[in-house]
C-alpha cells in the first residue's frame, strides 16, 4: 500500500543477518537479568506505583525498579505488532507493519544554516514552519520530527508551538520528540484531537506520536515517563529511545551497549503495556560510540551502522515497530563524511526494515540543520530505496529479444525494450555526471543544487492549510499552558 507523495521501502529483496537467533536470545536474557538484578530508574510516582501494583521490587527512595523476567515478557506480548501512524491527510497514513521503511526529518536541532544567507544562526519557530513546508513537498520525507527547537517561544509551551507549526505546513504525520512533561503532553493530545474531531478518534487516527528519550545508563526521565503514560492512555503511539553511547553512558562493547539500551527501552515499553495493555508502542534507538579523545557524542561511524541493523532484530524479537536513528554525522558541512555516514547508517537500518528512519537534515552531531544536507539525505534514501528492490529476474528483464535484435556490436539505445525500462534506472538529482568541461566552467556541485531545490520548494510549495478555526483553537490551548 502506498501513500500520497510518500516514498517508502517495501518488499525488500536484500537481506542481512547481523545477529543469529541465538545471539538475539543471549542479548534478551542479559537484558532481563539487568532489569531483574541491577534495575532501572523510573523517577515518576505514577510509574513506580504501576510497577508496584504489578509485583515489581520498587525502591521508592532511589526510584529504582527491579522486575521479574516473566512480568516483562508477559507485558511485552500485549503490544500490538502493527498499527498505523495517521496523517492530517488520510491518504498519507503510514503503515507500521514491518514491510515499510519511512524516512522522517531529524529533530531537536539548535542551529540552522539559513536558507537564504547560508549563515549559521540560532533556530527559531519560523525554521520549524519552513522545514516542515519543504518536507511536506518531498516524497522521501514520510513524517516529521520537530526538526529544530523554536527557541524564540516560551520554554514551557515550546513543544506545542512546534507541533502546531508543523501541522500548519504539512499534512504528513507528526512525531514529536520535544514534549517531555505532562502539561505539554496533555495539551498536545488536545491539539491532535482537534484535528481528528475528538479525543476518542485519536485511537483510530493518531495524527501525533510521541518519542521519549531514556536517560542512560538504565534510567528514564520523570517528565518523559508521565508524558508517555498519558499518551499511551490516549492511544497515541509512544516509543522510548535509547542513545546509549559506548564507553560513556553504556558499556564499551557493542553487545553490552545493546543490552543496556534494550533494558531501558523494554522496561519502559513494559510499563506502558502494564498500565494500558495493547497501547501502540514502538522501539526507538540511536546508540553510538563515544569519541575516545573528547568523550563526545560521535553521531556516525561503524558502530552506529552496526547498531542500526542490530536494533531492528531486537525490535522484531519483541514484535514491535522500530524508530531508528540514522543519517547522524559529526561533519560540520555537507561533505565526504556526511555522505558516508548518512549512506551507511541509513542502508544498514533499512536493509533490516526499520519502520521509521530518523532522520534527514543534520550536521555536527544532530545540532545544525542544513537544507542542502536534507535534500541530499533524501537522495541517499532514494538510492537505498532503489537498492532494496534488488534485481528482478524474469523473461522480460532478461531481455533476450532485445539482445537478439542488437546482436554482437551495435547498441541498445534505439531498442523499444530500452525505452520501456529506462525509467527504472536511477536518475539522480544531485550527482555530478556532467562533462568535465561543464563542471570546469561552473564549479558547482550537489550542495549548490540541493540548496537551490530547497529554496525553490520553499518559494513555491503551498501545503494544504490548517483550518483557521482549528488554528485558533490550538492557539487557545497553547496560551493556557504559557505562564
Amino acid at each position: 500500500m502506498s501513500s500520497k507523495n510518500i516514498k517508502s521501502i517495501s518488499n525488500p529483496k536484500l537481506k542481512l543477518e547481523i545477529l543469529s537467533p541465538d545471539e538475539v536470545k543471549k542479548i534478551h536474557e542479559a537484558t532481563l537479568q539487568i532489569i531483574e538484578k541491577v534495575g532501572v530508574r523510573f523517577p515518576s510516582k505514577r510509574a513506580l506505583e504501576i510497577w508496584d501494583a504489578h509485583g515489581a521490587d520498587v525502591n521508592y527512595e532511589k526510584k529504582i525498579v527491579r522486575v521479574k523476567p516473566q512480568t516483562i515478557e508477559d507485558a511485552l506480548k500485549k503490544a500490538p505488532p502493527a498499527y498505523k501512524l495517521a496523517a492530517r491527510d488520510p491518504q498519507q497514513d503510514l503503515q507500521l507493519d514491518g514491510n515499510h521503511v519511512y524516512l522522517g526529518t531529524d529533530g531537536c536541532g539548535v542551529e540552522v544554516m539559513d536558507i537564504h544567507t547560508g549563515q549559521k544562526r540560532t533556530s527559531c519557530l519560523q525554521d520549524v514552519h519552513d522545514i516542515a513546508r519543504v518536507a511536506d513537498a518531498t516524497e522521501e520525507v514520510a513524517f516529521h520530527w520537530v526538526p529544530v527547537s523554536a527557541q524564540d517561544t516560551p520554554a514551557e509551551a515550546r513543544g506545542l508551538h512546534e507541533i502546531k507549526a508543523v501541522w500548519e505546513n504539512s499534512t504528513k504525520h507528526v512525531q514529536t520528540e520535544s514534549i517531555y512533561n505532562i502539561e505539554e503532553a496533555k495539551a498536545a493530545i488536545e491539539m491532535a484531537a482537534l484535528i481528528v474531531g475528538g479525543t476518542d478518534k485519536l485511537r483510530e487516527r493518531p495524527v501525533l506520536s510521541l518519542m521519549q528519550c531514556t536517560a542512560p545508563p538504565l534510567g528514564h526521565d520523570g517528565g518523559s515517563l508521565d508524558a508517555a503514560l498519558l499518551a499511551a492512555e490516549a492511544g497515541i503511539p509512544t516509543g522510548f529511545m535509547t542513545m546509549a553511547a559506548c564507553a560513556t553512558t553504556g558499556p564499551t562493547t557493542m553487545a553490552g551497549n545493546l543490552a543496556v539500551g534494550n533494558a531501558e527501552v523494554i522496561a519502559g515499553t513494559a510499563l506502558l503495556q502494564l498500565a494500558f495493555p495493547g497501547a501502540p508502542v514502538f522501539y526507538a534507538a540511536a546508540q553510538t560510540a563515544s569519541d575516545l579523545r573528547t568523550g563526545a557524542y560521535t553521531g556516525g561511524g561503524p558502530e552506529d551502522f552496526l547498531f542500526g541493523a542490530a536494533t531492528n532484530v531486537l525490535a522484531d524479537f519483541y514484535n514491535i515497530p522500530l524508530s531508528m536513528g540514522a543519517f547522524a554525522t559529526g561533519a560540520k558541512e555537507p561533505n565526504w563524511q556526511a555522505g558516508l555516514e548518512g549512506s551507511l547508517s541509513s542502508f544498514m537500518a533499512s536493509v533490516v526494515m526499520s519502520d521509521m528512519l530518523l532522520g534527514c537534515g543534520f550536521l555536527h552531531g544532530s545540532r545544525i540543520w542544513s537544507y542542502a544536507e536534507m535534500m541530499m539525505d533524501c537522495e541517499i534514501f532514494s538510492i537505498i530505496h532503489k537498492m532494496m528492490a534488488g534485481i528482478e529476474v524474469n523473461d522480460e528483464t532478461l531481455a533476450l529479444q532485445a539482445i537478439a535484435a542488437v546482436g554482437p556490436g551495435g547498441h541498445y539505445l534505439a531498442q523499444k525494450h530500452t525505452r520501456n525500462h529506462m525509467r527504472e534506472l536511477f536518475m539522480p538529482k544531485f550527482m555530478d555526471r556532467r562533462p568535465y568541461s561543464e563542471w570546469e566552467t561552473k564549479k558547482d556541485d550537489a550542495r549548490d543544487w540541493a540548496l537551490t531545490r530547497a529554496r525553490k520548494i520553499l518559494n513555491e510549495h503551498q501545503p494544504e492549510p490548517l483550518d483557521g478555526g482549528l488554528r485558533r483553537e490550538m492557539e487557545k490551548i497553547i496560551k493556557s499552558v504559557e505562564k
Partner: protein
Amino acid sequence: MSEELYKEMAQSIIDGDSDIAIELAKKSIELKMHPLETITKGFVIGVNYIGDQFGAGEAFLPELVMAGEAMKAAVAVLEPELLKLGEAREMMGKVVLATVEGDIHEIGKTLVGTMLSASGFEVVDLGVDQPADKIIGKALEINADIIGMSALLTTTMVRQREVIEELDKEGLRPRIKVMVGGAPITRDWVTKIKADGYSEDAIGAVKIAKELVGKADQ
C-alpha cells in the same frame, strides 16, 4: 488532411517509431505531398520537440536516439523524391565520422553520428579501425566540412594527430575542420594536436559541429 498527417509524422518521431515514420513517408508520396514540406512541416517538428524535451531534462538519451533513427528512416524514403524534383534538403554541413585505426570502440561515435544527422548534418560514418588515408579520401570525395574522429585508448588517440598532420601536409585545413572525441580526450590533448573542436558527449558534439560550420545559431 495534410495538417493531420504532419502531426502524425511528428508523433512518429517523438515515439521513435521508425516503422510508422516510414509508412507515413510513403503515404505522403502517394498523396503527392511535397517531400521537402513533409520533412520540414512534419518530421522535423518531432525532432525539434524531442530535442527541446531533452534539453529541459524531460526526455532521455534513448528517446533522442530513437527519434534520430526514425528521422533518418523517414528521410531515406523521401530523399529519392527530392532528387527527382532536382531539390535537396538544406543541410547544415557534411561530416565524415570514423573510429581511428587500431581502435574498435564505436558507441560514442555512433551516437554522435545519430545526433548530427538528426540535427540536419549529412553524415558518412566509416565505422571503426579506419586509417588516415581512408578518412581523408572519403572527406575529399564527398567534399566534407568536418572530419570527426573517435578513439577510446591512449594508444590509439595518437592516430588523431596523424590524420591532422596529414591534412595539414595536404593543405586541406582550414577547409576541412577536425573534431575529436573519446573517453581519454582532454582539452590539453585537443590543443596539443591542434584539432578544431571536441566534446565530451554527443549533445555537445552537435553544438561544436554547428560552430565549426558557422551555424552556431541554428
